[in-house]
């Protein structure tokens, strides 16, 4: 690999890793709070136990999210110092707000985790709500940075330096609405599917456990709702991208020639030399319809843009296909769950359905990672679209091989440890009644 590739690989690997934990850190507290609310309403100790389990998961995953996020705030500078030096004053504002939101989340999480049973239950619940809210807010702000990088606004460039800077206009660049909506929904969706999958697996082994039936019901409900909302948000994103980031749209769809009645390609292998897509399934006028809601509309193709500005077409296209494929499967499962629940007037727990939920457990995170790849690959070869190329932002530090392997090893180690710990949490806790927990904050009191 060359210098630039090492830098991109390190950044990509770090972000891909961090994103899993950040998404869980945003979404898991929601389940924690829902369980607390249900416990307050019903007095059913299963909800309390569910909430405690969610809290333990949050504690472990949030810690990894926090430290990997800290590492990232340094890695941005370590790998892309010219980007940070030139545009730090533009993207710094949302980062600062994200910092405060994250800080609040850490504080409330400390109160929540270690305060259970020690502080009044109202304050405890409020802290939990604080965790859930500030997590969402911090994800919102950090996604704004991505919107600015995708479509830089609010400044002009003079001799390689930004001038006439309007930080607020930069912060709320056009893609901000669809990106934040799509990303936040994705956090809840991915986490809910993973939870539903895990609990479905446990139910297959312990079909009578009341606790896991309840946990499964809540996870499945959130999973289904988000899976059905996400395509609507995706449609909104497609529209917005068609209008403001036409080159990205063309790469996503491997759409070479500008044309009216543009077809939608599903799958296929893009050939950059001939500008053809082989073996794909084409839906006539599909792309025009998707991008503008008008089957006759003209959609700009890659050929209208200079070749040196093209994103990696095949990779962007595949990432998009994976995201949409996973998203469609999840939406299908959502419809199925709703149908079964309506027919049985109860939470569906047929064995074949539980197996289907287990199988779709990883889909949310697959879609989350793929969607992130779409937005990042689709912006290449720019780090700040149209303003600074990624290769011009990279550090002059001569040997990026050691840091790449250091961070790769570090994250692999963390990943393995976390999976092991979570697995242990799930296995060792008794199936009935609240356990006197071993280890963890609850052990202290």
């Amino acid at each position, binding site marked *: 690999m060359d210098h630039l590739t090492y830098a991109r690989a390190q950044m990509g690997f770090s972000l891909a890793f961090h994103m899993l934990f950040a998404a869980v850190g945003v979404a898991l507290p929601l389940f924690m709070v829902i369980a607390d609310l249900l416990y307050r309403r019903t007095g059913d100790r299963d909800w309390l136990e569910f909430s405690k389990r969610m809290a*333990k998961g949050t*504690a*472990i995953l*949030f*810690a990894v999210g*926090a*430290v990997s*996020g*800290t*590492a990232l*705030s*340094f*890695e*941005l*500078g*370590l790998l892309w*110092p010219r980007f*940070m*030096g*030139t*545009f*730090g*004053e*533009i*993207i*710094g*504002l949302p*980062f*600062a707000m994200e*910092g*405060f939101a*994250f*800080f*609040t989340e*850490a*504080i*409330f*999480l*400390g*109160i929540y985790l*270690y305060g259970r049973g*020690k502080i009044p239950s109202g304050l405890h619940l409020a802290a939990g709500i*604080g965790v859930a809210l500030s997590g969402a807010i911090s994800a919102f702000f950090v996604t704004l940075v991505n919107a600015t990088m995708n479509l830089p606004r609010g400044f002009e460039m003079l001799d390689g330096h930004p001038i006439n800077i309007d*930080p*607020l206009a930069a912060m709320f660049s056009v893609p901000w609405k669809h990106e934040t909506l799509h990303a936040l929904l994705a956090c809840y969706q991915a986490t809910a599917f993973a939870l539903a999958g895990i609990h479905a697996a446990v139910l297959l082994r312990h079909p009578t456990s009341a606790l896991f039936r309840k946990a499964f019901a809540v996870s499945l409900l959130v999973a289904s709702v988000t899976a059905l909302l996400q395509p609507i948000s995706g449609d909104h994103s497609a529209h917005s991208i068609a209008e403001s980031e036409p080159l990205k749209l063309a790469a996503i769809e491997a759409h070479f020639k500008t044309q009216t009645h543009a077809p939608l390609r599903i799958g296929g292998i893009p050939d950059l030399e001939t500008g053809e897509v082989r073996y794909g399934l084409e839906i006539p006028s599909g792309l025009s319809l998707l991008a503008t809601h008008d089957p006759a509309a003209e959609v700009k193709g890659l050929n209208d843009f200079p070749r040196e500005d093209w994103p990696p077409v095949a990779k962007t296209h595949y990432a998009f296909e994976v995201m949409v494929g996973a998203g469609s499967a999840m939406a299908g499962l959502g419809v199925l769950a709703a149908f079964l629940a309506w027919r049985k007037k109860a939470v569906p727990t047929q064995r074949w359905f539980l197996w289907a939920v287990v199988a779709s457990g990883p889909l949310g995170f697959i879609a989350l990672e793929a969607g992130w790849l779409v937005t990042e690959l689709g912006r290449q070869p720019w780090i700040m679209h149209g303003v600074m190329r990624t290769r011009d932002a990279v*550090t*002059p*530090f*001569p040997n990026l091989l050691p*840091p790449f392997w*250091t961070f790769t090893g*570090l994250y692999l180690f*963390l990943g393995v*440890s*976390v999976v092991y*710990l979570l697995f242990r*949490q799930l296995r*060792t806790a008794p199936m009935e009644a609240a356990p006197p927990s071993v*280890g963890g*904050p609850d052990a202290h009191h």
Partner: protein
Amino acid sequence: MLTTELALGAVMMGALCLYAVFGGADFGGGVWDLFASGPRKAEQRKLIEKAIGPIWEANHVWLILAVVALFAAFPTAWSAICIALHIPLTLFVVGVVFRGSAFTFRAYDDRNDKRQQRWGLLFSLASVASPILLGMLAGTVASGRITVVDDVVTSDYVTPWLQPFPIVVGLFALALFAYLAAVFLAAEASAAGAVELTEDFRKRALLAGVVVGAVAIVTFALSFRGAPRISAGLTERLWTWPLHLGTAAAATTAFVALWKRRYALARLGVVAQTIFILLGWAVSQYPYLLVPTHTLQSAAANPRTQVLLLVAIAAGSVLLFPSLYVLYRIFKGEKPFRVLDRE
């Protein structure tokens, strides 16, 4: 006159001071975890875990705020630091990651001794390495050995930070954090009524206090060659003298209070000492952010960003400080900031 860049510099310094006091004490806790010994070895570790558990994540975010303030308000300085100090920064980040994750994993892994020991060892080794690296970074920034010409870093990637002065500053940071932690832990043990445990940490604190003093003298002596800007600031600027007096007074108070077993006062003293030391560094280095090329003024972002950052920081603080107060109030006693009452 208080300009926006000065205000932002002050915010950054404030975040660093709080990181040194709170995050530093957490690192110090890791150091004492490593050196836990004697008949109450297990109790010592337990107290450390209990003291750090609820608050380490919050304590740790001060660092993120300082870094964000640095790159948002003084982007070119951050860029140069990231290039020149790539190696120690990377190592520091790795230390921070191991410290935080190993601590949490230990809390949630089973109580099997072998496994606990392994996480504990990782946690405490990272707690020793990170402060040294943090101190080295600060020492190098102050040393003036990083050179930048036309936005291009011309110094190499190793020699600026592998010098006696930064290394001694690193050891100083380690000693100071260990001192902070020992005093805090003695105060917590005393508040909990654990007499023997209190004595354990009192002895450790007294030892660490002596080491801090000794390393401080070596650091000052080395600064004449290693960081002339700092030594000049420390000795020649009249307005740094009140800070020196403050440091001396705080250090004496802390040590004497510790000797006389007045732990709340000792805690106040050691916190004040830490803050005075950092302020002394900042003021003697002023107006330089990165000696000798970037000043607060020359590295500052555009005025609109600066104003908006200050607004965001003010708004964020309104949310932050009350929540922090609640956190400390719950876990650090009825009146977390009581300091002058007798034990």
